């Protein structure tokens, strides 16, 4: 673990330095976590809610962080779990099958006033949200964030081999979708 993170965690655990340290943590990681969440739920308002919930959870559970992994890996993990919980709650509310949240996400994508990409990028996003949930997360983390498989393995609690296979399948499916919609 980096020295800065170690110092930050030590300050977060002390009552008198906690608030300032937490503010520093938020400033350091808010953008990275925002984009990680945004690529999964696509809509800005949903992302904002999930990001706030993520940091609230971090605040509550910093005492249980065992420092076995990097701080940002732990934060990514909380953000990913919060996002999956959010999507599952949407499925339950809309009585959708367990893996099918693509219609909700498609609506998010097409109605998003903050989408600034071109037609090809819109097509890519449509292809991504047709993927199964796990493949979608793996593809976003690898393709856009260029995260290493070893780090992804810690975040998603999945073996490197399984992650490589998921990414490969995702790329194939996206390529197929683009080819078919040309």
């Amino acid at each position: 673990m980096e020295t800065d993170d170690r110092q930050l965690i030590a300050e977060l655990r002390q009552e008198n330095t906690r608030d300032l340290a937490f503010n520093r943590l938020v400033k350091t990681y808010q953008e990275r976590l925002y984009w990680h969440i945004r690529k999964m739920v696509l809509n800005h308002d949903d992302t904002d809610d999930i990001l706030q919930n993520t940091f609230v959870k971090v605040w509550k559970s910093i005492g249980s962080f065992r420092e076995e992994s990097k701080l940002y890996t732990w934060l990514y993990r909380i953000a990913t779990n919060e996002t999956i919980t959010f999507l599952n709650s949407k499925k339950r509310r809309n009585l959708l099958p367990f893996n099918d949240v693509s219609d909700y996400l498609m609506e998010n994508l097409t109605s998003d006033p903050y989408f600034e990409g071109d037609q090809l990028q819109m097509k890519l996003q449509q292809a991504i949200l047709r993927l199964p949930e796990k493949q979608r997360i793996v593809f976003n983390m690898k393709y856009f964030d260029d995260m290493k498989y070893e780090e992804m393995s810690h975040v998603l609690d999945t073996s490197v081999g399984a992650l490589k296979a998921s990414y490969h399948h995702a790329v194939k499916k996206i390529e197929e979708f683009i080819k078919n919609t040309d």
Partner: protein
Amino acid sequence: MNKLRKIAPRLSKIKKENPFGVPNNYFDDFSARLAVKLEAEKKTLPQPKNTVIRYLKPVLGLAASFALIFMLVYWPLKSFLPQYLAESETYIESTNEDDTFLSILERLDETLFFVVLSEPVSVNETEEAGFLDDELMGYLSANISDYELYLQTEN
């Protein structure tokens, strides 16, 4: 990248840019909005209780349970079934007496045991155990008339 170009040529042609935007000053204001939410969360968090009470809680709970069982079982039995309790208390006492006697016997060795057995019974003990003839005659003459004695011998 070359591998991606090979397996997904169309995908690799798409610009790898982030197509999403955020409202103006979103990241500048985020920590302030989060602080408001955290304050609200802190108010809803349960306050840490006194440590001593926290540790004593299971013991107190157990004691309360025993007290409750005592109230619900022993007290009604004592109130509504006094005869039953009297019997069980007698039984306990007699058991204790037996136990004491057995423990005395266990402490005696064999020689001592036979010495105790062969000792003659004292006069006092005979007097305690039964009546002397003179006492019996005195009791009969004081409490039973001659007519009643006659009736008893006739039957």
